[in-house]
């Protein structure tokens, strides 16, 4: 399973950033029809190789231009909410564990052999504040005189935008350097802190800041796919919690919004107390599987 996950993460990261003509075309980013589709994970649409749009960036822009709409039906970004809600309803945060390119980058960084630290758990609430404030409220309410807001998460925080968008674009188009201001240096500092943090603390950005992870986390108790726990097989050995990249105790925190369904816990359990499957209706118990020998 770990190899399959690495393979999928690699294929998605490179496959969705596969536009290689950026040095030769008129524009340094892909401008084709695929940009009408959002990436299920966090992937900057200004990345020169990006084929898809960023759902967080797109939603903020919808919110930012909500008051700016003149006549006709206001563009409310329901297409993004519908798209992300559909994905969240089916797979929840599995997207974070298997699909998200920025999650993949953090997984790679965490492989650097250094001393590792655990996260102070209350910080996990931060991502909900980031989602509510910088992705929804600020783009709607902090508007200029013409009624146009800004994508504040992209502008102030997004490390994926700095790494995948800003840095390659500034290298490819040096003329853009004249336009960068305090926001760039602020974001660069945040990016460096997050990248160092990802080496020391597993999935730091996903657990503390990511608004997309916060949104998908809302579906953790109702998504179609889920982790299953067979209580009778559990011997409380703690193998699952030692492997969990988000610091959970999987046998006690089934359906946690923090779970990215990487399935490391399922692989680590020799007693088949954890499994992955389709959610059953309430009242239908998980089918008890015979515990395998730990040897």
């Amino acid at each position, binding site marked *: 399973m770990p190899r399959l996950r690495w393979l999928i993460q690699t294929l998605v990261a490179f496959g969705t950033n596969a536009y290689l003509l950026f040095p030769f075309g008129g524009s340094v980013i892909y401008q084709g*029809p695929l940009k009408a589709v959002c990436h299920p994970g966090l992937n900057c649409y200004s990345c020169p190789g990006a084929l898809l749009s960023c759902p967080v*960036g797109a939603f903020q822009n919808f919110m930012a231009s909500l008051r700016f709409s003149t006549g006709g039906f206001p563009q409310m970004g329901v297409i993004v909410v519908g798209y992300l809600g559909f994905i969240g309803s089916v797979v929840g945060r599995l997207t974070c564990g298997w699909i998200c390119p920025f999650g993949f980058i953090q997984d790679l960084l965490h492989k650097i052999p250094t001393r590792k630290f655990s996260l102070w758990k209350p910080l996990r609430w931060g991502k909900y504040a980031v989602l509510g404030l910088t992705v929804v409220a600020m783009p709607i309410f902090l508007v200029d005189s013409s009624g146009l807001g800004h994508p504040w998460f992209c502008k102030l925080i997004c490390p994926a935008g700095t790494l995948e968008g800003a840095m390659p674009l500034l290298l490819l188009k040096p003329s853009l350097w004249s336009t960068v201001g305090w926001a*760039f240096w602020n974001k660069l500092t945040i990016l460096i802190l997050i990248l160092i943090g990802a080496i020391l603390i597993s999935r730091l950005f996903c657990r503390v800041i990511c608004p997309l992870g916060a949104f998908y986390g809302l579906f953790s108790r109702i998504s179609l796919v889920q982790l299953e726990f067979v209580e009778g097989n559990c011997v409380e050995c703690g193998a699952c919690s030692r492997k969990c990249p988000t610091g959970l105790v999987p046998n006690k925190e089934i359906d946690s919004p923090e779970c990215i369904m990487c399935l490391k816990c399922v692989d680590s359990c020799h007693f088949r107390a954890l499994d992955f499957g389709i959610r059953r209706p309430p009242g239908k118990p998980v089918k008890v599987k015979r515990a395998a020998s730990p040897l």
Partner: protein
Amino acid sequence: MPKQFLLLIIFFTVLFIIGVNTGDLTYLLNLGATICLSCIGVG
């Protein structure tokens, strides 16, 4: 399959269809074709 899941899927599919039919798709396409100055850190 839980009933809640089916209701959610229907709800989000309806939202998606509304978005497609109210011009969100064109907006998204135009947005994706422009360099995001906020991502670069202009300002």
